[in-house]
């Protein structure tokens, strides 16, 4: 089902006017975030509820306003430990520990918060070319 999410989101990003590498970046970030929720917040249980919203928002940018894609993911899993959430140095070659790094490199804003027993991850990607691409 992750694959279905990726393809729907990739098409959404393209329709909003993001370039192909930007679409890949958004898809990668959300894939990694969902993977982390399943693995770390829900300890591998794929059946637990994940809420997601995808919105076009207006953000102040470069002195003027611009459009952006805002993605909010929420889970009811274990509280994330901020100390672990920092990612790791890339110098030591070992499997794992890349997901948060990928998310941070891919998005313009990455915010974690915990409220009402839920973990919330807010991701924003700023749209540099304004307006939707035709024929995508």
């Amino acid at each position, binding site marked *: 089902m*992750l*694959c279905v999410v*990726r393809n729907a989101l990739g098409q959404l990003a393209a329709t909003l006017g993001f370039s192909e*590498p930007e679409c*890949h970046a958004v*898809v*990668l970030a959300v*894939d*990694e975030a969902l*993977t982390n929720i*399943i*693995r770390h917040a829900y300890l591998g249980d794929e059946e637990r509820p994940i809420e997601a919203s995808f919105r076009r928002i207006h953000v102040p940018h470069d002195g003027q306003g611009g459009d952006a894609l805002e993605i909010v993911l929420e889970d009811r899993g274990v509280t994330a430990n901020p100390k672990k959430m920092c990612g790791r140095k*890339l110098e030591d*070659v*070992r*499997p*794992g520990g*890349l*997901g948060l*790094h*990928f998310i941070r*490199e*891919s998005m313009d804003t990455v915010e974690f918060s915990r409220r009402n027993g839920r973990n919330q991850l807010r991701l924003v990607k700023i749209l540099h070319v304004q307006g939707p691409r035709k024929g995508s």
Partner: protein
Amino acid sequence: MQIAARHLDKITIFDISGDIDLATSPQLRKALLREFRELKVPRVVLNLGAVRYMDSSGVASLVEGLKASRDVGSRFILFGLNRTIREVLQLSKLVRIFEIYDNEEQSVAP
């Protein structure tokens, strides 16, 4: 993701297709570890030409494969990386640690 194996003299080639993600990377990891640790194949070549997508769990499996290959003194080679896969490896700053070729001919050359 699907894995098809071909066997040359002392070389195993895995033709991978589809997406390498949370759901499928364990299968890739297992195939690689078996080839290096159990079968001690001197060279394993991964044809990624038909892989459309790879995330950090895929990269992690490749890194595990690389470590296993070093432990037993085998070679682990990648070829056929499209732009998306190259971007993900670049993002992980791991492009340089892998032995990557443009095509199969170079990958199986003595």
